[in-house]
């Protein structure tokens, strides 16, 4: 049972971590909580279903399943990134120098808009994602599905790539510089607008990947799935220390495990209570989050 709950928790946790990264990166640079981020996750899942459906109609899934999965991933990540870029350009950029409350309200507006947009265009009913990558194996008395392994592996790979990107590339360095001090970075010749766009594109891509994997895992998506997922991922980001990239990864995993073990060992009826209860505990005892030191740097 312990092992099984551990695997369950890690699977959900790694997806929380992927979404949390988008929150934390945007917060790190703009100081804005992008409430529309959960909707990007939802849109990613929908695009996954749509592209996978197109490939099935074309007959590609039957002849070459791995290729069609990879193509679905790439296409919906690209498409969702375009959503993220557009949202930033339309909804946040004009408010760059407005009081902090204004972009926050716009973010909520964008979130409501996207939810209803998807409801009207795709219908209010749940959409079913076909079961792929079925099967699995057992370790001891725990059953691990291939999909769970796939989700964990993909998340880890994406996180490693992100980490390398942030630490080793020029754009990544520019991002960190902008996060530390926007004005100074622009004085040194960094195109801040471009960096911010890149942040939204990367964050959206990660959320879309998470959305698609959840769609594959549970096989059921709907237009309001982004709300709870976004809330949980936001919790994970705050838990790990908002603004800190490693914190978001850790926060996501911790949140997944807490939920899974809480539901398994104490009571499944209070699953969400554990998730948000731990947030309160962290905020009371360590308000900057688990790995939230770099917040001080910012000040």
């Amino acid at each position, binding site marked *: 049972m312990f092992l099984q709950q551990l695997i369950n928790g890690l699977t959900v946790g790694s997806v929380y971590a992927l979404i949390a990264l988008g929150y934390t990166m945007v917060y790190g640079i703009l100081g804005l909580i992008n409430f529309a981020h959960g909707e990007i996750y939802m849109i990613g899942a929908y695009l996954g279903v749509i592209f996978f459906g197109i490939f099935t109609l074309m007959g590609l899934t039957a002849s070459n399943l791995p290729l069609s999965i990879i193509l679905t991933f790439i296409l919906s990540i690209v498409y969702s990134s375009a959503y993220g870029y557009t949202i930033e350009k339309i909804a946040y950029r004009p408010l760059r120098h407005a009081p902090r409350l204004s972009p926050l309200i716009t973010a909520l507006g964008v979130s409501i808009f996207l939810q209803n947009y998807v409801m009207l265009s795709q219908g209010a*009913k749940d959409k079913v994602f076909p079961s792929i990558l079925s099967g699995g194996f057992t370790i001891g008395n725990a059953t691990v599905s291939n999909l769970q392994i796939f989700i964990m592996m993909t998340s880890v790979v994406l996180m490693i790539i992100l980490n390398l990107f942030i630490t080793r590339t020029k754009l990544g360095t520019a991002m960190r510089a902008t996060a530390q001090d926007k004005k100074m970075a622009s004085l040194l010749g960094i195109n801040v607008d471009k960096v911010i766009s890149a942040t939204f594109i990367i964050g959206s891509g990660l959320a879309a990947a998470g959305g698609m994997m959840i769609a594959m895992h*549970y096989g059921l998506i709907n237009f309001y799935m982004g709300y709870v997922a976004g809330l949980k991922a936001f919790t994970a980001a705050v838990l790990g220390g908002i603004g800190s990239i490693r914190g978001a990864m850790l926060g996501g995993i911790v949140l997944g495990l807490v939920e899974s073990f809480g539901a398994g060992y104490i009571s499944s009826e209070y699953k969400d209570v554990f998730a948000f209860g731990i947030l309160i505990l962290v905020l009371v005892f360590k308000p900057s989050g688990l790995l939230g030191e770099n917040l001080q740097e910012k000040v």
Partner: protein
Amino acid sequence: MPKSSYFKILPVLILIGLTVFGCKKGEEPIANVIKIGTAGPMTGDQSAFGQDQQNGVKLAVEEWNLKGGVLGKKIELVVGDDQHDPKQAVSVANKMVNDGVAGMVGHFNSSCSLPASRIYNEQKIPMITHGSTNPQLTEQNFKGIFRICGRDDQQGKKAAEFVINDLKAKSVAILHDKTTYGQGLADEFRKGVEGEVKVTYHGGLTQGDKDFSAVLTNVKTGNPDLIFFGGIYPEGGLIVKQSRALGIKAPLMSGDGVIGDEFLNIAAADAEGTYATFAPDISKIPSAAGFVRTYTKKHGKPGPYSVYAYVAANILLQGIKDANSTDGGKISEAIHKIKYDGTLGTIEFDEKGDVKLSPYVIWQVKGGKWEQITK
């Protein structure tokens, strides 16, 4: 999607509606129609049930209007969307009262019908639910609250008897979705199996959640012969799917909330073998053949509750006709006296407003389809 085109023409309809209303204002009084209302989960994850309901009621209203309406007036249908949220149900109920409906068909979910029934009762508006099975609804001593479906104490008992006598299960795990309906049904089932079958696990989960792996891992440790779930198809479908992924072989049994094609879509191949309690198959009832034909022509294959919504609307309209008035108290009295002979056979209500004779039967998913397996 028909939904999107509906929304596209909605503003146009509103404009036309305003124009027509504006022209006619001086000429004749507006009270030339009799309004009846129907409310349920029209959007959201349970919208399949809501749409079935709306189509069923609409069909009844259209048929009555073709025959000249009721009391010499045309019938107008007011549709409310409660999104299976009790808070929303209360505001929908208040809106219905303001719209001046003569009677209600619905709500669908017990958790919505209960708070809404108090509002209708205060205003003496009769309400016939086609799907709320929680016993409490008709135990409130309200005069004008009826239901044409069964009750969860009957349903839970039937399920328990089947598990004990036919499946001969030794142990069960019980799950529910913490709603009035789900938890109520799970409790009734537990009452029925207590002492005969070992209950290895009893717990709730959150409606709208997608991940039940944690609770199912607990279920797996108890190694039950059967999992009983009190709830609706979005969670039911995921439970059966995720329990197979965890290597649980025990079949799922549930109530009327999982009946229908949506459950099969969600659970796909894993749905096979799932049991449920529900009313008898209408395709085998001779008097329902006409309904099935007309409904299929207009809205496609009837959902599990389409016919109940249709019959409920018919009884309500018959009640208005018998009462020869739109006064709620008089309609309720008339409905109590009704002996309605129609699509589902003869329907009569007892003094509480429950339907006399509500036989539950067992259904099972066989070859990717729901089939009635007991008499």
